[in-house]
């Protein structure tokens, strides 16, 4: 075969292959998108509710700790507000503030509680923000977060399938009632019922003031606090309890407290509360309160809210 002929054949074949790929991608991507947003329960459903649908008065933001620590019955009964918990397992401040920014771009909640963890501003990858990919198209607030994942993210998002990477089986199952009972939640709250029975953990590797913090995470937190302030949305930042003993102060919490103070935002730190370290039966593991512990903690947060009502009025 002559060289020019070979090139022509190759590029013609390549174009045809790309066309088939494009059509397949569009078809599969459209189907995945349609069924993704039709999910009836589970992790993704809660995320969709949080980002796109909820109009609850009280919103809880954060990681797996926020989904376990803030009981809706306690808050709803006392504050007479509707409630939704937007926390998510395995996520951090970037996810929480991304969801928070999406929410405040839609409506003005009456109160938001952002739960932050020790080491919240630690350096780390942004890969877990992949969970927000399905919202890239429809929620502009999410885009700067997703673009943190890498310089080629916009290129990858040309694919209709890419945002639903690794979601195929979840979409399949949660569009049916298969095992639906196991995926139920109470307005986003996911109670834990076991009790911790091992000795207290001693935390030796918390970030000290000498350790560099991730400026991106710090900035995301700061932006969210100032957004809430400028939109006059009452925000409380809470560090909930641990069943562990910290040998040194955590620089993430120190930084968060400082940002809150500068923005006249209420910050409450329960992370080193002695009372919780006396009660392992309030915890399921060293990082998560169980349903009983969540009741006690939720009431303590409520008391703090009531004591600082003036701070919540911007």
């Amino acid at each position, binding site marked *: 075969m002559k060289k020019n002929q070979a090139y022509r054949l190759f590029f013609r*074949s390549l174009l045809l292959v790309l066309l088939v790929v494009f059509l*397949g991608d569009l078809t599969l991507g459209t189907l995945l998108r349609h069924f993704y947003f039709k999910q009836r329960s589970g992790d993704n459903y809660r995320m969709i509710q949080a980002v796109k649908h909820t109009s609850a008065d009280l919103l809880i933001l954060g990681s797996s700790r926020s989904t376990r620590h803030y009981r809706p019955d306690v808050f709803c009964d006392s504050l007479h507000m509707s409630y939704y918990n937007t926390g998510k397992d395995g996520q951090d401040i970037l996810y929480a503030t991304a969801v928070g920014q999406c929410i405040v771009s839609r409506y003005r909640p009456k109160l938001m509680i952002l739960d932050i963890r020790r080491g919240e501003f630690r350096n780390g990858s942004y890969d877990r923000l992949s969970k927000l990919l399905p919202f890239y198209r429809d929620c502009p607030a999410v885009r700067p977060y997703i673009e943190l994942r890498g310089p080629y993210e916009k290129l990858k998002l040309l694919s209709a399938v890419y945002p639903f990477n690794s979601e195929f089986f979840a979409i399949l199952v949660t569009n049916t009632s298969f095992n639906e009972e196991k995926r139920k939640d109470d307005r986003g709250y996911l109670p834990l019922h076991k009790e911790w029975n091992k000795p207290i953990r001693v935390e030796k590797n918390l970030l000290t003031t000498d350790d560099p913090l991730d400026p991106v995470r710090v900035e995301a937190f700061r932006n969210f606090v100032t957004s809430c302030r400028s939109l006059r949305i009452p925000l409380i930042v809470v560090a909930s309890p641990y069943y562990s003993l910290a040998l040194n102060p955590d620089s993430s919490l120190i930084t968060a407290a400082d940002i809150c103070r500068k923005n006249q935002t209420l910050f409450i730190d329960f992370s080193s509360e002695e009372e919780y370290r006396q009660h392992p039966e309030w915890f399921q593991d060293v990082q998560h309160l169980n349903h009983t512990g969540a009741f006690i903690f939720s009431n303590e947060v409520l008391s703090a809210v009531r004591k600082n009502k003036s701070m919540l009025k911007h």
Partner: protein
Amino acid sequence: MLFNSIHFAFFFILVTGLYFILPQKYRWALLLLSSCYFYMIFIPVYILILFFTIIIDYFAGIYLERFQGKNKKVFLIASLIANIGVLAVFKYYNFLNDNLTSLLHQFNYTNEIPSLAIILPIGLSFHTFQAMSYTIEVYRGNQKAEHHFGIYALYVMFYPQLVAGPIERPQNLLHQFYEKHEFEYDRVSQGLKEMLWGLFKKIVVADRLAIYVDAVYNNPAEHSGISAIVATIFFAFQIYCDFSGYSDIAIGAARVMGFKLMTNFNRPYFSRNIAEFWKRWHISLSTWFRDYLYISLGGNRVGKNRWYFNLFIVFLISGLWHGANWTFVIWGALNGFYLVFAILSDKPRTYLAQLIGISARPRLHRFFQIGITFFLACFAWIFFRAASLDDALTLINQMAHLNGPLYIGDPSAFLYALVGIAILMMVDFKKEFYRGSLSFMNNPNRWVRYTCYAALVLIILSMGVLDGGQFIYFQF
């Protein structure tokens, strides 16, 4: 630069495009520069190490050809010392130092020699062996010394196989840099198909299985025996797909430009015995050890005991080549033991097969042979993957008790892993047993081929691990 990255996709398209545009006499320079760039993406300064060994081996090759007798040997030894020395310092120094510390501690002495805080240069073990094969072949008179410094440097640094092989031989690769490669449709499309299949193995199968394997192997005491068994089987497929996937991409990328690299994997889990396994697994490394260590020790042309010792020692060193940890040494020793045992037990096993009548049923016999070989390989993989000897023994202990529920983690991730393995095994099974029958990727109908390519791309996009965001959330 990782093969499964968009950066590499741009790099490959650009380099390949320029390769075919440039006149033949400049192509080596393009490939050398792009290989330097490829390597320097990791840790730029480490290219100096590479050039140190390249310079020594380049001149060693030239002087090896010029001199005879004892003088000739001096240059070979100098080259081997330089290469092995670099390997020893960067890969084994801290391992040896730590062991010395432990040994001295037993006698209440302290080790004053400090550890080195260095990162292992990427691909060091691979390009070192490739460089050594050059000087050894020149010494043996099987290869003429390369006088063109750029071509020799390219032989060591050729980017498709620089980081993870196949470990090439100078007789196979060097002359190819002088040949003019035209753009041929069939060869280019075959190369691209190999790359696509390699990406599937790496992204869909290997990286997916790694999530489960890491969850179990990083917390061995927390997991049940059944989970440990599943994780070990998963690891067998993970390492196969990771390694062979990389090889496929390397071989495919080279083929697109017209270079033929050696086959590195040949469906090893269909092997009927350990000897066959090592003819199908990491072929470039096993043949390297055969040709440069095993044969140099006398191979099987010695007394029986010495033969067994040769086999055992080659595998022991092969284990150490893989990593600076006693677990790798044990892995290598186990494989050496398997081989020696297989030789010693050949007659009794044949007799047993006849006795129970299985040798009269070849398919069933083959099935059992494949199963037993896979089991032996998996058992050895426990040591290869475990972080320490303690972890390996913990896992074996868990497996022996077959206790506890199967850890699934994220059910979706588990299912993707099974789907990936199923696709892989279907394709490998067909290649192994039904070679002449209908193929998808090589089907005569182009629409069947194109649909197959598209399906693979969509599977990669929908089921592949495209970043580090995939994880199994582990709760106490």
